[in-house]
């Protein structure tokens, strides 16, 4: 069982002092949630868990642990973030020990909540079902219908890089062949696209949860925080909100693993990943590149080749 193997490996790594800390998942206090857990001693390793509620991309924590040797539990997408970050020279080569988990795709807690009437008090997995219980109901839901959009589309569930793999590799096939959200967005007129984007970003409260949850957002000073020069105001005017969201998405071009952490973190449920997924598709089409799949190949927007496509320059 994956959970047991994670615990065993964590215990061993801490006992042998291969790492200073293991970052994995522990039981959350809310149903349908696991929570990031930092384990520093071997006897705490039994608090580590694994299930379909382990939604966070833990690699975002590495930026504040640069002085430590870290053992990290990674899914496919998380491992791709690590590769992308390594290419940007964020880590020393032997600073990390990756415990790779072939991912079973993660459950979208909001989808589940919206599907039932009443508050969910308990939830657990049983095979391909999620059982949710409230005060006066108990329902069984088919897991595949309640996954995060990024997980339904995922074709990189096996970690691209790991020091050890716990669990058998899974077959790499998407649950959805075509991205319904991106397809829908592409089919809209320019005006309709803008209206959609405008409506989504209008809910932004500038909490920057999307930025903080994203492993690729690590600038020492984010452009929105700069006061000299001041690129953007700090209020809620539509132009400031839209500017933030456009730049946030564009800055991910060729770097985003599509983990969806930004969208999951947003308390106002702003749709964010349709933009990054569209950018990922463009990068794939233009440069045949997917972020974090190859540890040697730098992202296309960080390099220049004379034979780069440039038809888009008009």
């Amino acid at each position: 069982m994956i959970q047991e193997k994670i615990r065993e490996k964590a215990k061993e790594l801490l006992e042998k002092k291969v790492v200073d800390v293991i970052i994995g998942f522990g039981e959350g206090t809310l149903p349908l949630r696991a929570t990031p857990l930092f384990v520093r001693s071997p006897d705490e390793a039994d608090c580590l868990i694994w299930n379909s509620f382990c939604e966070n991309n833990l690699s975002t924590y590495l930026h504040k642990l640069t002085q430590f040797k870290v053992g990290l539990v990674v899914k496919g997408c998380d491992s791709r973030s690590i590769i992308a970050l390594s290419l940007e020279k964020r880590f020393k080569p032997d600073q990390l020990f990756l415990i790779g988990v072939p991912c079973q795709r993660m459950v979208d807690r909001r989808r589940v909540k919206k599907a039932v009437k009443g508050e969910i008090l308990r939830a657990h997995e049983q095979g391909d079902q999620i059982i949710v219980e409230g005060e006066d109901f108990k329902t069984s839901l088919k897991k595949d219908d309640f996954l995060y959009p990024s997980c339904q589309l995922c074709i990189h569930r096996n970690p691209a890089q790991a020091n050890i793999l716990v669990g058998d590799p899974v077959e790499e096939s998407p649950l959805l062949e075509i991205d319904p959200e991106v397809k829908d967005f592409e089919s809209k007129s320019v005006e309709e696209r803008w209206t959609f984007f405008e409506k989504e970003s209008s809910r932004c409260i500038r909490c920057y949860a999307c930025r903080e949850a994203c492993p690729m957002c690590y600038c020492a000073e984010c452009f929105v925080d700069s006061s000299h020069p001041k690129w953007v105001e700090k209020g809620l005017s539509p132009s400031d909100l839209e500017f933030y969201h456009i730049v946030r998405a564009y800055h991910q071009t060729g770097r985003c693993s599509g983990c969806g952490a930004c969208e999951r973190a947003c308390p106002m449920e702003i749709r964010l990943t349709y933009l990054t997924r569209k950018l990922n598709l463009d990068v794939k089409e233009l440069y045949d590149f997917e972020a974090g799949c190859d540890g040697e190949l730098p992202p296309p927007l960080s390099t220049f080749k004379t034979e780069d496509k440039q038809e888009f320059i008009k």
Partner: protein
Amino acid sequence: MKLKLDKKDFQPFLQNLMDEYDLFAPIRLADGVFAYKKIDQPEEVDLSASNTQKPAKEVFFPQSETMFRYERAGKEARITSTEGVERKRVILGARPCDIQAVCLIDQVFSGKEYTDVYYANKRDATTVIGMACNHPLSTCFCTSMKGGPFAREGSDLFLIDLGEAYLVELLTEKGTAFSQNEFLKKAGPNDLNLAKEIEEKASKKTDASMPVEGIDKKLDQMVENPFWEKVQEKCLGCRVCTYLCPTCHCFDIVDEALTNKGQRVRNWDSCLSTLYSLETSGHNPRPTNRERSRQRIMHKFNYFPKNFDQIACVGCGRCILYCPAGFDIRQTIKEIQKG
């Protein structure tokens, strides 16, 4: 005085309110996402959520508020004030926890020492129509924090959802101004009994066991405790918990200036942001997440009680529900009390 508002009369009642007042109430921004906004059409009002994401404090203390505008023409400078409130206001549908929170921050913005005109003017002009929580969530612990799902303190009128109608209690002078309202009818004994039943049931549901007694004293001894290292560990350093908190009230004042004109604006700020305590010299007295997370807890459970004799947490549960990393303040409270 206890009256009754039939739900079929709800929209006309709102229209009637809007003839006299600017109405602020929860609206649905997206599926499952709610916030208080100024209402243009009665049908926008949506009371179906157990609570909004953004709390009711926003009506009195907006996230971004212009303090004045200025313009220069030749040698003349013209300043336009934005502090006045032209029309009477009503906030409708605010839950007891959010109203309790507004009463708490009253002490900061219109307390003994200072009066913040922007806040106080709005507060004075506003009639508060609170609404009982028939279905508190498992994350609610208002009853531990001197509140409750049916706490009426701070409300001028108080609504209790009876299914087909609302029981309307008129509690203050601002409330009794509604005694002659054409849509409010006399409540019968059945309505009162039903309301009582709902209240008893709901009040049992919230967690009254949160050990907050004496927490400020405990925290006095904990400033340099290694505990804060543990508290900050999984915190991402975003601002969700502070912006969605009904009692957090920090702000930052900036000038949005063009060459000849501009405005002074105050925006919500958050102690969890790196920028919050960054000084002009480049020095930051709260350089890491440890100091910043500590500040959040200290302000609520130590500094605020020292200044105002009350804890600045009302147990609404928003910080628990919306934290992207699953941080749970209930655990932190318990761990502090364990020592």
